[in-house]
């Protein structure tokens, strides 16, 4: 049989080329496809090189289509193959190494190159761009031996490179020609806020500096600027822009300008040759982002499959910076011009900035910093040049009641083939179908199923809106998620059921309450184990295999698989004898580092799992629970025993409290601090319970946190006596144990339950306080030292800690 398939040859194995191929394959099988790419790798997600550099992804993680995929699709792939030119006359593709390949249709997708400043020294080793895997590997490698890096260019790419290099431990300076960072996406205000934030993250800046030379002997040693000043650097990354890769097109006599000139059907000036991606210039514009090239690819695919298409009309681009903790978004026009009507909200305290530009009352551009929750709607409005209305204003600027309906409607009016996730080329229709066909109810499921939101995450708000729009009323109910994906039941429903149905093991809970997943997951099993123990402290048998390793082995796992042992030091006080013992054991078991913790204990880091029981046995000190969801430490100041300001014995009270409440399970870790006077040397304002001594007694604070979400503690009450203090502390703890959600810190708990409610329960209602105290006392009677237990229990010692030695090897 004669092969009736047409030959499609794609030049460039990058994001645009392969995405176009994928879209073609979805529509038709009438092409026999060959792909030629100059890189040695299969198709990968270039966007994510920033994450590879930052360390959160590996190169393997960012492969989009592996070699098997090409084979499965029947695509002939040449990697490491450089195309020289296209012979349009004879319809042949010519490669540098002399290969000739026939085509019926050709697609040029050669992308672009890093623009390298034409200055002396640019070819010195250690000077690179940021474009492909090779550049990324070069940076990772350089960071191992060198310390100082300079990144030229304060745009998206330069900043992401700089952050990556900082994460790799380098001392990084960003050199920027302009006054403002990302001046092509941000206005002055947002740019200044961005710079301040990045400085906080450790990046240095040299603004308004023009690099005139790279100097160095065998390798780069630094930069020289036009004003004569210098900057030392043993790695220089040029991220000043990109240059469309048009050699092939030029060699083939194609019409080019800055990029390869194409019409609305993405046709070049050579018949049957199309072009897509960053190498293209459409209506005078070269795009340097992924979203537009997916739209271009979809036009080509439809056209080649013989389907209707109105052609490519250009794209409204939006930008998101992929640096953790820095939310920046911009779309459309962003620099204020006289004809614009501008809406601005700047909040220096929350460090947020929001600007919306209107022309003739139409929304034409926006810049967001710090809070990008409105980015999805704004992107939509900008693309559609929506007229500003009171409703939209209310929704965006937070006056009046924010209208739920208007948000949903933007998902509703979105065209089916509009690309929602630019990184992964997922259309609205693909998401809607995935939701309907597979009964999805969460963004995570959509991510697993379609890949949307997997990369930069910028599309998440839109995906959420689509989900909301498709599910309609059932969104609320399905969004009322259970404690994990194994159940739809909430914490309260589960606790209630355990009590009323008298459930006694995690298995039973899962069976009786209809878990989707027979044995639960790493989220629900530890939670159920906690709830069961909290409800039945005397009868529940703790399930070690439902606990996270730290609590199963009573030591803190480190990333290399060794463990940290933390002996208790009640109230942060130890003795010379104990210190000596700690030193001896550390030496004997080759502890890697002895570290003083923020909670006033000693970390013995780097103990082998097999040695843990012996270490504890020889230390003969209780476990510090430095790893557990229970009372960790009670931090104290010097207090009245020695301090000239102290009015209360903080060390003494700290020790009493720590001894009394140690070992008890809590929903999350729990920290205390006791101060001798209001000078607050032990930092009680950031502890779950903070106690501050004063002349007539103590003041108690609750709900403080110094961790992920910092929060200052609220004043709960003042007490006169030590006995009262201990009672209130105990009753707050028990109330939290009984009403807290597993993993919910007191800082969140106080906000959820309300300070007044807690005051009512433990301060005003003394009978209730007494009942809480009795319940916690009862629970405290059941606790025992885990290490004593393990040391005396041959089986758990062996099964949990020992390595199996094969009998014959």
């Amino acid at each position, binding site marked *: 049989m004669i092969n009736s398939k047409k030959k499609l040859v794609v030049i460039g194995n990058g994001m645009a080329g392969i995405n176009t191929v994928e879209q073609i394959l979805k529509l038709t099988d009438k092409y026999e496809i060959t792909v030629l790419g100059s890189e040695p790798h299969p198709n990968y997600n270039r966007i994510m090189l920033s994450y590879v550099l930052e*360390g*959160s*992804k*590996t190169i*393997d*993680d960012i492969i989009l289509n592996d070699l098997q995929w090409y084979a499965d699709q029947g695509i002939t792939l040449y990697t490491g193959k450089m195309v020289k030119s296209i012979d349009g006359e004879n319809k042949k593709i010519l490669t540098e190494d002399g290969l000739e390949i026939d085509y019926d249709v050709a697609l040029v997708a050669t992308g672009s190159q890093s623009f390298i400043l034409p200055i002396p020294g640019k070819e010195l080793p250690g000077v690179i761009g940021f474009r492909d895997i090779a550049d990324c590997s070069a940076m990772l490698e350089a960071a191992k031996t060198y310390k100082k890096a300079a990144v030229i260019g304060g745009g998206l790419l330069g900043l992401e490179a700089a952050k990556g290099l900082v994460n790799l431990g380098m001392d990084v300076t960003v050199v920027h020609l302009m006054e403002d960072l990302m001046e092509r996406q941000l206005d002055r205000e947002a740019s200044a806020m961005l710079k301040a934030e990045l400085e906080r993250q450790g990046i240095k800046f040299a603004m308004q500096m023009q690099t005139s030379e790279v100097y160095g002997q065998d390798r780069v040693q630094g930069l020289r600027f036009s004003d004569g000043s210098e900057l030392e650097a043993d790695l220089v990354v040029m991220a000043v822009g990109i240059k469309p890769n048009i050699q092939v097109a030029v060699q083939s006599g194609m019409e080019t300008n800055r990029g390869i000139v194409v019409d609305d059907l993405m046709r070049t000036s050579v018949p049957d040759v199309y072009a897509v991606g960053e190498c293209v210039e459409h209506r005078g514009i070269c795009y340097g982002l992924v979203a537009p090239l997916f739209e271009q690819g979809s036009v080509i695919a439809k056209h080649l499959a013989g389907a209707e298409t109105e052609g490519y009309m250009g794209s409204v681009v939006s930008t998101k910076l992929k640096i953790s903790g820095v939310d920046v978004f911009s779309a459309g026009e962003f620099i204020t011009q006289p004809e614009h009507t501008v809406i601005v909200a700047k909040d220096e305290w929350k460090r947020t900035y929001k600007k919306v530009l209107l022309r003739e009352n139409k929304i034409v551009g926006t810049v967001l910093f710090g809070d990008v929750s409105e980015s999805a709607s704004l992107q939509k409005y900008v693309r559609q040049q929506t007229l500003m209305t009171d409703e939209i204003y209310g929704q965006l600027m937070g006056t009046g009641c924010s209208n739920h309906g208007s948000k949903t409607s933007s998902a509703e009016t979105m065209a089916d083939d509009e690309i929602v996730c630019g990184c992964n080329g997922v259309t609205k229709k693909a998401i809607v179908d995935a939701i309907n066909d597979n009964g999805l109810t969460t963004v*995570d499921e959509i*991510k*697993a199923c379609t890949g949307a939101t*997997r990369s930069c995450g910028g599309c998440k708000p839109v995906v959420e809106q689509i989900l909301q729009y498709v599910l309609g009323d059932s969104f609320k109910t399905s969004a009322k998620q259970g404690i994990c994906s194994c159940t739809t039941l909430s914490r309260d429903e589960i606790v209630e059921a355990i009590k009323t149905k008298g459930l006694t093991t995690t298995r039973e809970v899962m069976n009786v309450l209809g878990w989707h*997943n*027979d*044995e*639960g*997951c*790493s989220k629900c*099993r*530890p939670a159920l184990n906690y709830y069961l123990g909290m409800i039945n402290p005397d009868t529940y048998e703790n399930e*070690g*295999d*439902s606990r*996270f*390793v730290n609590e*199963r*082995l009573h030591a803190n*796992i480190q*990333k*290399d*698989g060794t463990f940290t042992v933390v002996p208790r030091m009640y109230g942060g006080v130890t003795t010379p004898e104990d210190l000596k013992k700690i030193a001896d054991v550390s030496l004997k078991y080759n502890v890697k580092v002895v570290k003083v913790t923020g909670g006033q204990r000693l970390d013995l880091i780097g103990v082998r*799992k097999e040695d843990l029981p012996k270490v504890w046995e020889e230390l003969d000190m209780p476990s510090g629970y430095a790893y557990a969801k229970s009372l960790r430490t009670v931090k104290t100041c010097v207090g009245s025993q020695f301090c000239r300001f102290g009015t209360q014995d903080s060390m003494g009270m700290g020790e009493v409290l720590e001894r009394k409440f140690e070992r008890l399970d809590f929903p999350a870790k729990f920290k205390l601090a006791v101060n001798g006077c209001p000078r607050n040397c032990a930092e009680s304002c950031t502890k779950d319970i903070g106690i501050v001594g004063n002349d007539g007694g103590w003041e108690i604070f609750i709900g403080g946190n110094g961790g992920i979400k910092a929060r200052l503690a609220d004043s709960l009450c003042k007490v006169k006596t030590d006995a009262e203090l201990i009672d209130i502390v105990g009753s707050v703890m028990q109330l939290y144990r009984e009403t807290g959600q597993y993993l919910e810190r007191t800082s969140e708990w106080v906000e959820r339950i309300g300070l007044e409610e807690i005051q009512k329960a433990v301060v005003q209602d003394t009978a209730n306080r007494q009942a809480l105290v009795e319940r916690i006392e009862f629970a405290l009677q059941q606790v025992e030292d885990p290490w004593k237990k393990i040391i005396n229990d041959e089986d758990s010692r*062996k*099964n*949990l800690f020992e*390595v*199996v*030695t*094969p*009998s*014959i*090897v």
Partner: protein
Amino acid sequence: MIKNAEWLVVGHSKDFPIRIGRTIHIKGVEIAVFRTSENELYAVENINPHPKRGPLTEAIVSGHYIYDPLYDWKIDLQTGIVQEPDHGQVKTFAVCEEGEEVKISLETV
């Protein structure tokens, strides 16, 4: 089961309790062995497929899946494949129980 494979005795049945991982060093390979509630044994290389590595033995076991102890990735013990939304695969080894002897073949499955 792999025929002709070289089976190495690595321990006694009771060395491998339900839902608790055990580490084995054998011919220079470190292996994590898990017994599920259904009493099935699985053996995987004790190297976390996460880019930052780390051990697997201390994982939480649920059915024939484990949740890795450092990053909470869900890994299928039958295939070694990391479950969505994460990616990767850990090497699996054939393991069997004959009488009270637990045996492993270092040929990968």
